[in-house]
């Protein structure tokens, strides 16, 4: 399968990428790791006229501490996120989630910024960001802004990013030692979650239970009111209306959300 023809431009800096986005408008797409975009282009589900490659911009990669938050550059690859000492120590759920993405070859290419911008509700890192209560930094023609995870994911593969904007970094709170749990249900290794659950300090996020990663607010409330993990988990699917596919129908997904939430709550580390 061969993508439709396009023009390729390697951006020289984040600013250059923004200029190119402004020049080409809707015709252009950013290319980071290419592990969501290239498969879609090979199937001709995406046919951008111009690809702006930001995948090798050093300025956009790496992990730093900034007061109470870790700041992770958008082009940090999944393998590097999973291995980063600072992330493993202070936001271990995020490092673990990165290690659950696909397989080693995919983790050597895919980036956190690409995964969040793609906003697949079944993906690992969007769910992790929601559970951690993190945010994203967005740069655009009018400057930069920070958007909380809960507001960033707006619909099925839809985010708060405008067509002329770039996600430059990801922020998560530094919380060493806070208990966390992670459950991903798959039938094949290297696959997306049929249902996923990430738990940090009483916040519960679900993958593939709706159009975006979701908070299991009813279960969170029950926990806060003193319910046992098992009792709280009974509310994990309340208010959700997940999609159906060859892997699972709606009721089975709701069942999985309850079971996986109980497991995530009962088997926390940290």
């Amino acid at each position, binding site marked *: 399968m061969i993508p439709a023809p396009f023009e390729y431009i*390697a951006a020289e800096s984040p600013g250059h990428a923004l200029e190119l986005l402004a020049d080409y408008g809707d015709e252009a797409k950013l*290319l980071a790791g*290419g592990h969501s975009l290239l498969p879609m282009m*090979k199937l001709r589900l995406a046919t951008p006229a111009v690809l702006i490659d930001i*995948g090798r911009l050093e300025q956009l990669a790496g992990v730093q501490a900034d007061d109470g938050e870790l700041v992770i550059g958008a082009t940090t690859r999944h393998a590097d996120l999973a291995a980063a000492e600072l992330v493993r120590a202070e936001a271990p759920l995020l490092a673990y989630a990165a290690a659950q993405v*696909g*397989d*080693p070859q*995919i983790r*050597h290419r895919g980036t956190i910024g690409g995964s969040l911008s793609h906003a697949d509700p079944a993906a690992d890192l969007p769910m992790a960001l929601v559970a951690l209560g993190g945010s994203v930094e967005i740069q655009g023609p009018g400057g930069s802004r920070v958007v909380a995870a809960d507001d960033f994911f707006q619909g099925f593969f839809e985010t708060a990013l405008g067509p002329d904007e770039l996600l430059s970094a990801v922020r998560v709170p530094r919380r060493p030692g806070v208990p966390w749990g992670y459950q991903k249900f798959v039938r094949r290794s290297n696959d997306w979650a049929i249902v996923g659950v990430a738990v940090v300090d009483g916040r519960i996020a679900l993958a593939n239970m709706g159009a975006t990663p979701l908070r299991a607010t009813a279960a969170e409330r029950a926990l806060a009111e003193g319910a046992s993990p098992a009792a709280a988990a009974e509310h994990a699917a309340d208010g959700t209306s997940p999609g159906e596919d060859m892997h699972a129908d709606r009721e089975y997904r709701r069942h999985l959300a309850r079971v996986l939430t109980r497991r995530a709550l009962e088997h926390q580390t940290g």
Partner: protein
Amino acid sequence: MTRIELTVNGDKRSDEVEPRLLLVHYLRETCGLRAANVGCDTTSCGACTVLLDGRSVKSCTVLAVQAAGQDVVTSEGLSADGELHPVQAAFRLNHGLQCGFCTPGMVMAAVGLLAENPHPTEEEVRAGLEGNLCRCTGYHNIIRAVLAAADTQAEVQA
């Protein structure tokens, strides 16, 4: 067309390519290196695995232009002067292949894995090769081969 300069199996190359050319097609058709196979063409099987700057990647999901300025190694580039690389030799010795279609990709994934983790446990080898499918062997001999290669590499370095 875009000009790319890169290193393939130690040789510096400079080629005009269409931006949409996939790295696997560049290697097979432009460079004439046929080790990396196209199995699934959907990032699933790993038959197209090569090393890009030392890390295993699926070359059906990388553009040749994305490899510009980098170092690509295919299974052909592992053996020097007709000597098999320890991982290739271990696959042969341990019957880590039958039809051989998955083998160049398996070998490159294994080389990448051992570079990151020179002394993996059996469990780590299984997880480390999760991106590579084999329809023949049932995997056991592949796992044995990679563990054996890790031992030989340790001996060579000792």
